[in-house]
């Protein structure tokens, strides 16, 4: 790693201030950022740890919405996200136990890895990403692989997850990284079904709207039978072709519906 200064503010305001420094970068649990720094793919002047901000840790549940602090770990969501079981189950399969003890919701969403689970969970949930400055709807937040609506120095302080009537996340793991080769979350909300897909697209997480329409008419796995996800724009690599990923989207969507 290139060297950097380390700061660990105790409040969001202090963190925002620290991130105003030139080349300062926020550090969540570091489970992606630290390996990236080891490869010298980034050279921040200061890393601003968000793990010391008590206001950004915790899970609450009110009015059909589960709100998770941005610095809450995956392990905490897995253990304490009982109000939204599908999301807790998703969190319980991110990385491995040690990674889950450090990695955070905010860190995952800020990074927006195209194979990460949380972007899928947020998009399918119709979540609202709350920052120090504003609230951003998930549909507006994800803007392609490793790209989000966050401005320089903006921090994900919490995420509001509307709790669906039924939901399920199906993760088909890439055997090496254990990220999602393809992951699909299906969430049936009172106002309609949302189907989000991670791991598959070169554009990052996306909604499979054809499936949503089909499921809005008939919420059953059979409703997907006549559909085929397009391989256009899907990732092709040593672990799977675009066609294979497109195929998995369909298989996993059906399974998620059946299991929801």
């Amino acid at each position: 790693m290139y060297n950097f200064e380390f700061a660990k503010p105790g409040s969001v305001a202090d963190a925002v201030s620290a991130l105003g420094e030139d080349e300062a970068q926020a550090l969540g649990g570091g489970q992606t950022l630290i390996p990236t720094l080891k490869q010298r793919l980034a050279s921040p002047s200061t890393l601003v740890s968000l793990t010391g901000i008590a206001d950004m840790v915790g899970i609450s549940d009110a009015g059909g919405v589960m709100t998770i602090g941005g610095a809450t770990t995956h392990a905490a969501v897995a253990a304490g996200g009982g109000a939204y079981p599908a999301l807790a189950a998703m969190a319980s399969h991110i990385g491995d136990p040690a990674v889950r003890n450090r990695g955070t919701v905010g860190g995952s969403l800020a990074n927006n890895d195209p194979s990460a689970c949380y972007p899928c969970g947020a998009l399918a949930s119709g979540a609202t990403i709350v920052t120090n400055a504003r609230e951003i709807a998930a549909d507006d937040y994800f803007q392609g692989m490793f790209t989000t609506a966050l401005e320089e120095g903006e921090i994900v302080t919490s995420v509001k997850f509307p709790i669906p009537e039924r939901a399920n996340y199906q993760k088909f793991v890439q055997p090496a990284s254990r990220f999602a080769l393809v992951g699909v979350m299906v969430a049936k909300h009172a106002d309609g079904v949302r189907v989000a897909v991670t791991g598959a697209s070169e554009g990052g997480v996306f909604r499979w709207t054809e499936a949503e329409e089909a499921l809005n008419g008939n919420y059953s796995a059979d409703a997907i039978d006549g559909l085929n996800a397009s391989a256009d724009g899907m990732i092709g690599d040593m672990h799977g072709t675009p066609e294979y990923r497109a195929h998995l989207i369909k298989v996993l969507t059906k399974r998620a519906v059946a299991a929801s």
Partner: protein
Amino acid sequence: MPKDNGIGASSKRREDVRFLTGKGQYTDDINVYGQTYVHFLRSDVAHGQINGIDTTAAAAMPGVVRIFTGADFEGIGGLPCGWQVTDRHGEAMQEPGHPVLCQGKARHVGDPIAAVVAESAEEARDAAAAIEVDMTELPAVIDMAAALAEGSTKVHDDLTSNLCYDWGFVEENKAAVDEAIAGAHHVTTLELTNQRLVANPMEPRVALGDYNAANEEHTLYTTSQNPHVIRLLMGAFVLGIPEHKLRVVAPDVGGGFGTKIFHYAEEAFCTFAAKAVGRPVKWTSSRSEAFMSDAHGRDHVTKIDLAMDENGKFLAVRTDTMANMGAYLSTFAPSVPTWLHGTLMAGNYTTPLIYVNVKAVFTNTVPVDAYRGAGRPEATYQLERVIDKAAREMGIDPIELRRRNFIQPDQYPYATPVAVEYDTGNYEATMAKLEEIGDIAGFAARRAESEARGKLRGFGVNCYIEACGIAPSNLVGQLGARAGLYDAATVRVNATGSISVMVGAHSHGQGHETTFPQVVAEMLGIDESMIDIVHGDSSKIPFGMGTYGSRSLAVCGSAMVRATEKIINKAKKIAAHLMEAAEGDVELANGQFTVAGTDKSVAWGDVTLAAYVPHNYPLEDIEPGLEETAFYDPANFTYPAGAYCCEVEVDPDTGKVEIMSFAAADDFGNVINPMIVEGQVHGGLAQGIGQALLENCVYDENGQLLSGSYMDYAMPRADDVPCYVVDHSCATPCTHNPLGVKGCGEAGAIGSPPSVVNAVIDALHSGGHTHVTHIDMPVSPSRVWQAVHGG
């Protein structure tokens, strides 16, 4: 009741205590006062002409001690290759130079161009980034067939082509084999790839060089399976340091699997640089660096033909292989696709005619050398896959087809048509044992249960044989080895009767510190706890060749037995003197010397004390002291063999394969410590399953490594593998070494891949996908899906 001491006891491993408490001493745990750290600037292109290197800015960076480039190694020897293969026309292989740091050209991603020595590892890396390399990227040669094509870019300008050798074996059989295949009732043909793998011991490589100017002594601490081999190669061929001024220490080593056999540039660099800068120099590989600097394994592309008569009797085998050498010849690379591969093509069968052709090819990739099994997995995989395909084509049960062709127990010693002589074995016995422990009769019911859950269940079986205990020195010398392959042990009995045994073998997971004392304890009738093993330090141990090829017990253990026999002979002379008896009447049992037919006895400790305090001692006949050394050169290879089976479930929707069970029936000859032997098999099975389903080292067409970390190179994890059922009760002891042992370290990795792939094909056929006759490893979900659906 099971034994609790000596041969056959599952003694708990004494080395475990230090590993379990964090007290292991691995190379990276060693720090020498004043040490510096080196970072290697490695090529990021697969093939490049180095026009110039400007280190000015880097040299001014904080903490930099000195920067080295290829120019500093002009006139210094390159890394030697330890095996010269002669091709089918009687010509020696093409052998390129292999400089410590690139001389004018980089030939693979990861080839070291420069080295920064600095006060800290991070400072060295900071400065390496500031080195300016003026490099012209050249076309890279990655694919082996393209590398052999007329007019291909050459990896080495001074060679005539990218062909290292074109080996034919046995060349005299070629015409007869071709004729038999042309006229056979049925010929089954299979084209397959044995993919490139990365050994990935969990401890990355480390080298720490130190130099004492006062007595001109070099010390190298290194993650090696064979410190004496490194001392010989590096001292004599690279740096010109005489043995008595060079000490090589391989302390606790965190796994090897072959890739820590070889002499590497970083070892030579740290030894050289420590003298040049006057301070110790340490290199610790990162895992990412390991992927582009550890020798890789396998990487064969093969076509095999199996000819049979109408009863399925094997008539001939013909196999053509392209074997990737990578950009340079690693230490034992040429031997792997030839003598460790072609000689095993008879397998467990009576096939009378065999011809093996191997073309070894240079490409702009990391060098390829031995990885657990080394040549034998490649032989086993192609043979056992083609037999499986043949069984399907002939409509014969795959176990029955194998049985029809087994070498029978009354045929030993059995000379194969590929130059080796199996001393002993019983393949029917291990197959029968496998049918029992694998509950093969119950498969149909399990398949029905899987199908009820929407899964396709398949059963796969295979046999294997390997040649271990490498090797008779005079034989391997004729075959091109540039070293002897004996081993050595010194048994030092101390005055009070405790014993230190210095061995040439090296333990990096195999448990020698536990098993070797079991042997000596058994021979002397004393407790294991009185015996310690010393290994891994060239200044303490006799000249032995180290640990690889499942050879430690068969070769070094035999040396230890011979040395212990010398101890017993001498101790009996002393005991005879003490008891005033004839030497021929003295017996040793349970640590007591007795005289047959009398009540005279003298304890082990009294004899050993007399050897060192020789007041009442036959000084006119024998010397004081009790220490003996033996070198053991084996008369033949050993031939472990067995039968394995695997059951898989395939998810027809996703193509995902799950291993439901794996059973292994092995013949390792005699077994010293059953617990450790079973552990060795377990580990080998996981590596074989890893090869079959998960692991793949992939380059793109430009020579960039796509699987350069654990993010893309899929290591088997706990939830990828099952609990294994293993058995080693069908033992036919080796006939030519004193312990009757054969070796168990590689069997699991050699014997398991074909069973897994055979099982997947069987599962797909059960689902009606009978057009799928082969899927190359790793049999990943996407490959299964593509095989079924095309596309």
